[in-house]
């Protein structure tokens, strides 16, 4: 059977309109759920960087659990610029790190979340973001109130190699970050150095204050994490230095 051109035109037009309608309807209907998932995930990472929300595997309703923990521990948040001044009137949660990193250093604004733990200590949580091997990597870092010692780190990625670079999300990679210092003894920003060479590489290099082992087979991703942390901490450096000297 051979159809006329008109038939083909009408057929394809109708098909495209129907498909467009289905897809726009689905996107609109599912958007609230997707946004909610993203928000919960953001809150989860902020909590986990301060080693909170540890019970998530046992929580019946994880979304509710995260919300409750978040309201309980994250007591305040504010926004700074790269010179270290506080910016008023901007919600820290609304900051899109991807957008900020595309701006020039002077125009960038950055979020800081304040977390009050049960033992009365205060932790400061920052957001970091950078490029991995296949796509973006990002995370949150929590600092003690000396603005030097890392309290906890959580990392995530979009498309790193499963089993290799993707392992940056695992505890075995992130837990050695704890207790590391980001400023060296003379007060210069050193951030974190990542050493290739398997387990104990950082120790062998003699860099106990700032060194962390890379993942074997995931060196490029590990190095990207190092670069991301160095770059992002440079933006926060002024604020941290001000606070340190106070």
């Amino acid at each position, binding site marked *: *059977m*051979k*159809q006329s051109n008109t*038939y*083909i035109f009408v*057929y*394809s037009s109708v*098909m*495209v309109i129907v*498909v467009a309608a*289905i*897809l726009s309807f*689905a*996107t609109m209907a*599912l958007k609230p*759920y*997707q946004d909610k*998932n993203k928000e919960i*995930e953001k809150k989860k990472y902020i909590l986990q960087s301060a080693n909170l929300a540890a019970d998530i595997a046992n929580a019946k309703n994880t979304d509710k659990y995260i919300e409750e923990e978040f309201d309980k521990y994250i007591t305040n948040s504010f926004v700074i610029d790269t010179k270290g001044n506080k910016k008023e009137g901007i919600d820290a949660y609304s900051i899109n790190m991807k957008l900020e990193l595309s701006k020039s250093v002077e125009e960038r604004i950055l979020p800081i979340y304040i977390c009050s733990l049960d033992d009365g200590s205060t932790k400061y949580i920052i957001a970091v973001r950078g490029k991995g091997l296949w796509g973006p990597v990002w995370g949150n870092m929590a600092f003690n109130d000396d603005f030097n010692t890392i309290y906890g780190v959580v990392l995530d990625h*979009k*498309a790193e*190699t*499963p*089993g*290799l670079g993707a392992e940056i999300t695992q505890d075995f990679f992130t837990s050695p970050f704890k207790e590391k210092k980001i400023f060296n003894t003379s007060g210069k920003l050193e951030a974190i150095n990542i050493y290739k060479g398997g387990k104990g590489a950082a120790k062998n290099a003699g860099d106990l204050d700032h060194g962390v082992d890379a993942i*074997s*087979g995931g060196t490029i991703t590990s190095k990207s994490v190092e670069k991301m942390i160095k770059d992002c901490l440079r933006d926060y450096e002024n604020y941290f230095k001000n606070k340190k000297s106070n």
Partner: protein
Amino acid sequence: MNELFSPKNMKLLTNPINDDNPITVQVLGICSALAITVKLEPAVVMTISVMAVLAIGNVVIAALRNTIPNRIRIIVQLVVIATLVILVDQILKAFLYDVSKQLSVFVGLIITNCIIMGRFEAFAMGNKPWPAFLDGVGNSAGYGIILIIVAFFRELLGSGTIWYYPVMEKIGIYKTGYVDNGLMILPPMALIVVGIIIWVQRGRNTKLIESN
């Protein structure tokens, strides 16, 4: 009812699992078999997603088969695939966020899975919706079985876990000096595992042995 599940129809369901397996016999859809078989969970979710797309897509194409203009049939098939894949991706993002993050781009890449296009063109264009549905389920099951077998061995030997459960550690094999094989995580090993599966299957299934 009897007619719906007649032996001929049941063959549509069971044939692709062994005798006419899309991966090991037709050698279609190999690319995704390499990409997402490092761990079991993504392999299973991928199987379910492909099953949804292939079964529904086959039914849609079979229902429309007499109206589809022959000259643009490939484009029509592509539009149907793309629509379903986007829907699956959006639904995963809304309700199974963690899994959708793991699969990331691979859900989108279902569009390029040759099995789907192949079944639309070879089967759905010439058959009624019900047989097309069975054919879709059967083919994606055949695809999924291979995926899961490959993922099982790659996760077990490469990471020492099964569905994230540290089996190798629990049986204490590391104490004897055993080390996980990092090569299993890399894509080439998926190809070799698929090759071994084909070898075993051909050795056991006499129908697949070519006479020359």
